[in-house]
């Protein structure tokens, strides 16, 4: 008995020790290969929709049809029954004023109730679907176009060609244990952000064929949850000049054609 228990505990301990060493290896290991790959990582930050988009004409028509069919196939509700009985009472009262129906005094009829509730609904004010930033067309704010997905693009200072390009925020891979770790560092360079990155695997890659010295870029996608983005125009130490939140439709206008072609498949919206 004693011996078996000892055996069990020892095996558990051994297994635990093995597991611990395994995790240690995982956490402490950094890339030790002699040749560091010359690549870049980029983060495509998306702000997902806050408001549901307006229905199209077909969708409106179909919802109307569905509700109509449902009412046709349904039984009368309590409210409709009440309305019906009240109409009958009114009829009786007209025909014979002295009957028992005249004695019943209705304070609020069903129609009155409907009117009152409709009035209450009218007085309720919905918040506008458009924000201040929509009116001023403030591209720096993520608080615009709430019914569309927005992408964060930054403008890179390019001294060589003299032309400033719009790109997704990127970083040269610098021996981090994984590409994901490198992506996590991009977030802090953009500002104090709360971001959820979707997965450890890159979703797209881009290589500028015309420029042989350019590095391969691997793209990750992230969801913007909260936070403020740095004002790049006031900072000197950043490689970027400006940033903007753009819709998916505007993306080809900002990004260069070959760049957009590489990331197009990743940026799908239904």
């Amino acid at each position, binding site marked *: 008995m004693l011996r078996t228990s000892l055996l069990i505990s020892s095996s558990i301990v051994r297994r635990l020790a093995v597991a611990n060493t395994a995790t240690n290896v995982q956490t402490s290991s950094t890339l030790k290969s002699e040749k560091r*790959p010359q690549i870049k990582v980029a983060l495509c930050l998306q702000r997902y929709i806050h408001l549901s988009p307006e229905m199209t004409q077909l969708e409106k028509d179909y919802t109307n049809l569905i509700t109509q069919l449902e009412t*046709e196939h349904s039984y009368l509700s309590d409210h409709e029954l009440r309305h019906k009985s009240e109409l009958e009472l009114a009829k009786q009262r007209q025909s014979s004023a002295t009957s028992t129906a005249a004695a019943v005094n209705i304070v609020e009829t069903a129609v009155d109730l409907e009117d009152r509730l409709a009035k209450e609904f009218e007085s309720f004010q919905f918040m*506008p679907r458009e924000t201040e930033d929509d009116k001023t067309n403030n591209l720096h704010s993520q608080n615009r176009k709430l019914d569309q997905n927005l992408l964060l693009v930054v403008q890179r200072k390019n001294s060589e060609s003299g032309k400033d390009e719009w790109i997704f925020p990127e970083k040269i891979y610098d021996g981090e244990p*994984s590409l994901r770790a490198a992506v996590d560092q991009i977030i802090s360079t953009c500002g104090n952000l709360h971001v959820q990155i979707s997965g*450890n695997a890159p979703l797209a*890659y881009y290589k500028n064929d015309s420029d042989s010295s350019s590095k391969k870029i691997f793209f990750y996608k992230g969801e913007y949850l909260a936070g403020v983005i740095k004002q790049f125009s006031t900072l000197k130490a950043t490689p970027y000049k400006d940033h903007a939140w753009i819709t998916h439709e505007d993306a080809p206008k900002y990004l260069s054609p070959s760049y957009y072609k590489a990331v197009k*498949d990743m940026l*799908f919206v239904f």
Partner: protein
Amino acid sequence: MNILSYSPSIFLLRNTFNRSFHISAINYALPTKAKKKADPMTDKIREDRKRRRYEKVIDKLEKFKLQLKPIHEYESERRILKELDVRKRSTVELTSEETTRRLMLNRDWAKHKHRQHQQEITLMSRAFKSQEDALEQLKLESEELYDKALQVDSKLIPFIRRGPLYSLPNSNYDAPDGDYFDTTNYFTKGFGVNFMDHMKTMERQKWTEIRAERRAKKEEKADDK
């Protein structure tokens, strides 16, 4: 462990001697006292009682077997079921135009949904292909980074997404205070829910019976004396 390898009697004797403990008589495989012979009649009565008790439980189990917990959503209200004739809606005669309009709308909607579905599938497959290509390129660059990229991201597991609303929440709106009434119907009948409770009550009943039996016996004895 090795203590047990000694003969128990010897061990006991020696130890008791040394520590001056008293022990009971050692039997050495002597037959123990004969068991008191029980009355066959009382035995039979006892067995009968036992059997009856189990039969009762089985009866109850069979009786309640089919009683399942009712789901209120599946059953319509009795009050409304009685008034079904009153609540009949007068049927509307559809004009031919209306029926064709409905048919066309249904057809358009089906087409629209089909197109949407196909679009979704193509976009998804494109995205998958893009990711596969990217991973292949990464494998060319570095095997280690490729292995790291294939790891499961445990941070994603409780995935929370708040759905889109129709309008923004109004910060000025003062929501009226409501009352909370618990109108849930708790199902207390049958074995479906409280089988264990039932078994406990049965056990309690059994013990009260046994106690009553004993008390009756005692009284009998007292009377005899």
